């Protein structure tokens, strides 16, 4: 029975890969505009606030996060413009992209088990983004792109899961997950292409499972590869849990030239990362 349903999912995945854009979600308009704003030399806080206000749900969520203990605002933040001046333009843009992507790509209208799985995927993606920033900082590298590389490293997973659940509502979660495992990497790449994501994000999505084969942006790829394992350890889901001892033996540590004491410093960031994941979930 399972194999028959899995076989039924193949045409769907093939359609996704064939570039049928109707089958793939667009990068949420607001996320797209926010990313573009970050690159606009004439942008200001008022313009960002204006864009975010177009989606009241998103604006509300951003304000909720901005008021969370994570950002320790001191006094309540009542407006997006105030949030921008408190948290910083970049931090708020990043937060807005994360929230927008979550709402669009990681959303689920299916069974509760599916919604739960989707929420787990989101928590993992957020944790990878946050750990990637920690690794970059530890290595004295720029942290700007690390979050996005981590957040979107497996963006194909929720997309396949949502599409498969929609087309085959009766298929059990294990079957859907199996389809996701088989196709997520290639679909994620197709999506990265469609969304015109920065090259290091594309490279990270493509090679983080096999970082030694990366032919460019190797540091970003290795950073995401390690962040991925750290996230599985810090925010375990399903049978992907990783132990601390396993983390200490990862070959990618050699690639990143992280010595044992530097790795221990990263492991100590677990609580902080988990706190941030909860805040943006």
């Amino acid at each position, binding site marked *: 029975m399972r194999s028959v349903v899995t076989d039924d999912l193949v045409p769907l995945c093939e359609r996704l890969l064939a570039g049928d854009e109707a089958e793939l979600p667009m990068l949420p308009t607001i996320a797209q505009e926010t990313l573009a704003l970050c690159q606009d030399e004439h942008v200001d806080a008022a313009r960002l606030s204006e864009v975010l206000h177009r989606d009241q749900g998103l604006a509300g969520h951003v304000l909720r996060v901005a008021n969370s203990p994570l950002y320790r605002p001191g006094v309540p933040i009542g407006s997006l413009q105030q949030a921008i001046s408190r948290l910083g333009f970049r931090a708020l843009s990043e937060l807005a992209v994360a929230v927008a992507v979550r709402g669009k790509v990681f959303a689920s209208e299916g069974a509760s088990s599916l919604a739960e799985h989707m929420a787990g995927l989101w928590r993992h993606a957020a944790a990878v983004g946050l750990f990637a920033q920690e690794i970059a900082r530890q290595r004295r590298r720029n942290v700007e792109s690390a979050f996005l590389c981590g957040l979107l490293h497996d963006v194909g997973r929720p997309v396949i899961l949502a599409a498969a659940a929609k087309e085959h509502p009766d298929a059990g979660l294990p079957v859907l997950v199996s389809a996701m495992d088989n196709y997520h990497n290639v679909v994620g790449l197709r999506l990265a292409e469609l969304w015109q994501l*920065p090259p290091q994000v594309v490279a990270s999505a493509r090679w983080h499972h096999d970082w030694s084969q990366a032919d460019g942006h190797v540091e970003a790829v290795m950073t995401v590869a390690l962040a991925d394992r750290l996230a599985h350890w810090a925010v375990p889901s399903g049978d992907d849990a990783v132990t601390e001892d396993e983390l200490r*033996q990862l070959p990618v540590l050699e690639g990143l030239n992280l010595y044992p004491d530097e790795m221990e410093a990263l492991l100590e960031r677990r609580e902080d990362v988990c706190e941030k994941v909860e805040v943006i979930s």
Partner: protein
Amino acid sequence: MTEAERFDFVIVGSGPAGHAAAIIAARAGHSVAVIERDRGVGGACVQRGTIPSKTLRETAAYFAGLKARSCGALTAHIPPEVQLTTLMARMERVVEQHSALNANQFEQHGVVQIHGRASFTGPREVEVVGVRGGTRRLVGGTILVAVGSRPRTPPNVPVDHEHVLDSDSVLSAMYLPRSLAILGGGVIAAEYASIFAALGVEVAMIDRFPRPVGFLDQELTDRFVAHFEAHEGCRFLGDRKVAHVQWDGAAYVVTQLDNGEIIRADKMLCAQGRVGNIESLQVERAGLQANDRGLLDVDEHGRTAVPHIYACGDVIGAPALASSSREQGRRAVYHALGQACPNPPETTPIGIYTIPEMAAVGMTEEQARAAHGDVRVGRAKFSEIARGLISANTSGILKLVTKTDGTLLGAHVLGEGATEIIHLAQLALQAGLGVRAFADSVFNFPTLAEAYSVAADEIVREMAEPQLAAPATVG
């Protein structure tokens, strides 16, 4: 406990100093081990400094050169969405290939390469811990510390590698900022200031000294500042101290200077010196102590307070250039071997990869006057050299400083190609040639080397040479 491995030379660090030292020692028939904490061979020079920044510089120089060479007929604009990484797309390959070449040279000379972090366990012994654990113990007849340096973070500058960067994190920034404040006036600050200025970024260079790269001849640095400030929105703010730096939480890094000036910029690059990578080395176990700048003190041969331990490169301080580090590495090994080192250190050239380049060898005019009283100076402007005109490299200058009898004391060059053509003067200094060697030589035409003839000719004329014999009359 593992048994200690014995080597004639144990060299900690594989940057320019360690590399040069290892090759010379191995060539002399000694057993050599080189310990490198980074993944590749070459140290910060190859992995994070010289090679990566020069890759970006190459793009910036061509970008700026396009406009100059076409008299503005061709211009290029870098769209804001272009990523910094795309401007140095070749960097990873260049770094990898250069590192592999260095490693290959080690292999050919039988140098044992060990990847790990070294620490002294005693004056003669070093322990190496690998990235994935595991230790080795090495005993060296001579130990050479060439561990390099990393950017210094002053207490009043909040380096976060996101808004406030240092020279390690600046090259992994995602986008070109619109504006950049650079703290410092040394080599790294000047190089990045001119590179980002050439790429169209508004740069404010802030330093406590009146002019940047103060150890160079003032005529060169004055011209460099003029060239830098010719870029729209670029300023050199000398004689200023930083009172406070803060990310405003929204859009700008705000720098308050001690004179009350406020500088706002998208990003800041902090380039206020470097500190030696000696914490994990535990030098006190070898009987050494770092000085108050976190560096190791050495004598003129590179020897520390412990006679068989030498130190060279960035870890002993300025000028902390690849060329000077190489020189220090070879000098230390020659001394350890009891041999005289060919060529004095004064003939080691200095190359600064600003846009335009600056290079020097020997004494500045000021140093020469202090040492010799009267001196002669000859200049050649690149705007008076055919090759300078052809390549729109007209802001350059070559300056020769000689004794009154024409003996060469120093040469100073500003302009594209400066770091290459300075080597003619280096060889002349090493060979003890006078300025006549340049005046009487024919160089390829058109080349920038012709500047040597022009500058030398000025000195020769001043020396009131006897007139050439009149041509014989016929008939």
